[in-house]
């Protein structure tokens, strides 16, 4: 049985498939196709919400039976307006002039940076069978530590940034390590402990922002701006916010790939995730693995926090982590806990984050629709059978008789 992290372990292994799948079946079952279909279905579901909340559509719906074209054109206008604004905000702004046209895509990459880091951290945990909900807290602690170094020390350019990143890494690793240590020593459920640590870190940072450690001085709980020497250098000049953190995030993804696929430690992580008892029988120190997995996850999430503050925000607030930690859960799930998948998923969600403000201002579609899109995508990805049941190509293929919806790898 493959250790697919999305599918819960079953007591009985699925029956071996009797016949070799046809070519059509194999093409339609490709996971990338499932993902594309899931995204398409999610956009359709969300467009229903967009249309339903639009006032023009609501008034046209009043006389839908007398003049249906009005209703459909109003719905189309609402949906097209929202999604075209999303596209212009996230990928390519064809209404802007000059280099500003490609600014949206750089914004997308910028907002994906913390998601890549935190998503990679969670992915490591998922593959080791640890459900770490604590990325939120780890991101925040990392951001706080990075900010502290950034506003306190005045070191040469590269050194200050490196020190801030190391501080963030250690803070995140320590914060996650608490959960790993407690699980190893006392069997405390990591889901509960990480949820609690999220709330504690929120209040802890809120407190630190009112004290001299991180306080700016005014009444607002916001830290001073970090020193320029501690910020990530910009990659494409001052017109764009894309910073070196993106490259570091990609390197982190390569590192995670090496760690999980090529190193002994990663093999042990995966073994613990696949079967704890077997791993223990094989002589692995399962408890130590719990701690190391959480430390790795926390270090990556902490770096994500540092990238957010030192690359994008430049100052720390209690809300700096925003929903990064929770988005990262969906990122890791969508990426199927693989490094490449996680990076791509983070860029997709980064695009939704980057594009949604323009959608809100120019098409009056609230930002919150992005959450619906994200959640629907992940739900559908998690249930490939459902996507097959819903998708048109699969339906047609099933009708032509060379493909069965139910029979395919459930």
């Amino acid at each position, binding site marked *: 049985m493959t250790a697919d992290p999305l599918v819960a372990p079953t007591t009985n292994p699925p029956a071996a498939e009797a016949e070799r799948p046809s070519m059509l079946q194999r093409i339609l079952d490709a996971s990338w196709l499932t993902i594309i279909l899931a995204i398409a279905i999610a956009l359709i579901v969300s467009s229903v919400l967009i249309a339903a909340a639009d006032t023009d559509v609501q008034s046209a719906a009043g006389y839908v039976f007398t003049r249906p074209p009005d209703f459909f054109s109003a719905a189309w206008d609402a949906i097209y307006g929202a999604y075209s604004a999303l596209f212009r905000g996230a990928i390519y702004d064809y209404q802007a002039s000059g280099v500003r046209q490609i600014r949206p895509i750089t914004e997308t990459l910028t907002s994906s940076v913390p998601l890549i880091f935190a998503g990679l951290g969670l992915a490591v945990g998922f593959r080791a069978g640890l459900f770490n909900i604590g990325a939120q807290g780890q991101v925040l602690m990392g951001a706080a530590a990075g900010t502290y170094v950034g506003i306190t020390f005045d070191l040469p350019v590269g050194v200050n940034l490196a020190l801030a990143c190391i501080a963030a890494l250690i803070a995140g690793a320590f914060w996650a390590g608490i959960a790993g240590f407690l699980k190893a020593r006392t069997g405390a459920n990591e889901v*509960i402990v990480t949820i609690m*640590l999220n709330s504690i870190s929120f209040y802890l940072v809120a407190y630190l922002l009112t004290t001299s450690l991180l306080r700016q001085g005014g009444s607002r709980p916001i830290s001073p701006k970090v020193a320029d020497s501690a910020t990530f250098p910009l990659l494409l000049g001052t017109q764009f916010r894309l910073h070196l953190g993106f490259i570091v995030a990609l390197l982190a993804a390569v590192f995670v790939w090496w760690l999980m696929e090529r190193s002994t430690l990663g093999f042990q992580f995966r073994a613990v995730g696949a079967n704890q008892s077997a791993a223990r029988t094989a002589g692995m120190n399962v408890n130590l693995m719990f701690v190391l997995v959480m430390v790795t996850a926390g270090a990556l999430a902490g770096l994500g926090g540092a990238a957010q503050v030192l690359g994008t925000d430049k100052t720390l607030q209690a809300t700096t982590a925003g929903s990064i930690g*929770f988005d990262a859960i969906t990122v890791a799930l969508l990426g199927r806990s693989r490094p490449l998948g996680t990076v791509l998923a983070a860029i997709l969600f980064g695009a939704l984050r980057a594009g949604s403000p323009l959608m809100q201002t120019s098409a009056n579609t609230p930002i919150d629709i992005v959450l619906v899109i*994200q959640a629907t995508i992940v739900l559908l990805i998690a249930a490939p059978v459902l996507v097959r049941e819903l998708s048109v190509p699969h339906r047609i293929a099933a009708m032509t008789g060379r493909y069965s919806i139910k029979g395919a790898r459930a």
Partner: protein
Amino acid sequence: MSAILTAPAEPVGTLVEARIHWRATVVYGIVGLLALLVSLLTSSGHETTFMVASRSDVAQIAPFALPSRVTGVILSLAALGLVGWVAWLTARRRKAPVWVPIAFGVLVLCVLLVWVMAGNRNALPLTVLLTGALTMSVPLVFGSLSGLLCERSGIINIAIEGQLLGGAFLAVVVASATGNPYVGMIMAPLAGALVGLVLVMFAVRYRIDQIIVGVVLNVLVIGVTNYLFSTVLTANPQNLNSPPRLPTLPIPVLSEIPVIGPVLFRHTIIVYLMYVAVAALQVMVFRSRWGLRMRSVGEHPKAADTVGIKVNRTRVRNTVFGGAVAGFGGAALVAAGLAFTKEMSSGKGYIALAAMILGRWHPKGALAAALLFGFADSLRSVLGNLGSPVPSEFLAMLPYLVTIFAVAGLVGRVRAPAAEGIPYVK
């Protein structure tokens, strides 16, 4: 033949004894000593004033002041005495009665109150504090009962947060639209049940990891309610987002008892229903056929199936019911006539989950844990008004810290239902 009839006189091998677990006792001891230390460090001249009467009471009790240091020390010593007794019981391999941790917790909380309010010119309104604790714990109680119903039947319900939020949303919208808070309260479980239905369909039919579905459903419900709030509710706040408050129904006679009356018997119908729900579930889960079937499906689905219990049907029903219970908790969230705001459940679903685990999957345990969280919330808001030496952020952290200590130290390796989170395939 006679060899079989005469049993061997001497025992075979050495007598095997279970290890004595000292961890709980040690944790109690440390907490007790901390309480004592804190009390001893209080400066001796300070007094702590308590105010027990509320304005509407028949029997008025004047506020009274206690010397902070002496009171704290006496209470801490009493707590340490309890620890000593627990240690004595543990050494004799006997279990401490259920009331011991509760009494210990109450003593330590009293020490905390005495210390926090030492030298404060304001009196601590005890009745207000306890009433607030109960009110704030109601959504948590319903949430953890929901988690309990689902997990006892083998489905992990992380979506409590979404169920609370959905319930609150529907309660607000329906109550505002009809102008009747009771209609809103009755409709709220529908939203929770819907979330529960989606959860269990994905879990049973598609066999997806239940924690993942739960987390994603929370995001989905947050997204949908936020979106509808920003569009529909914001466009028409008078008709859709101004719910009337549920009337307070004081119970005759009982509500006139000093302290206890206002705290327990001067509430909305939701609180009384909570008393009923906890008591009923405590009996039903452990004493009824329905409860036995639910637990058997959660512990050993194969055995349950063998004796003819429909495993997946039981799971679907209980999860939908559990969702409805959490949705009712959402109605409790807005019972005071609150308008809906974005993400107004603010993590209460996760806290309810923690309360359920702290309460070891028992209704009465969940009630006790939820009351603890409610108390911490209430303490924070009361002290926020009176001023306290401890920053409010640390008071806010307290329940979360307590949970970590409890999960790590006292509860430790609690046994969740054995088949929890594992889909059943025939």
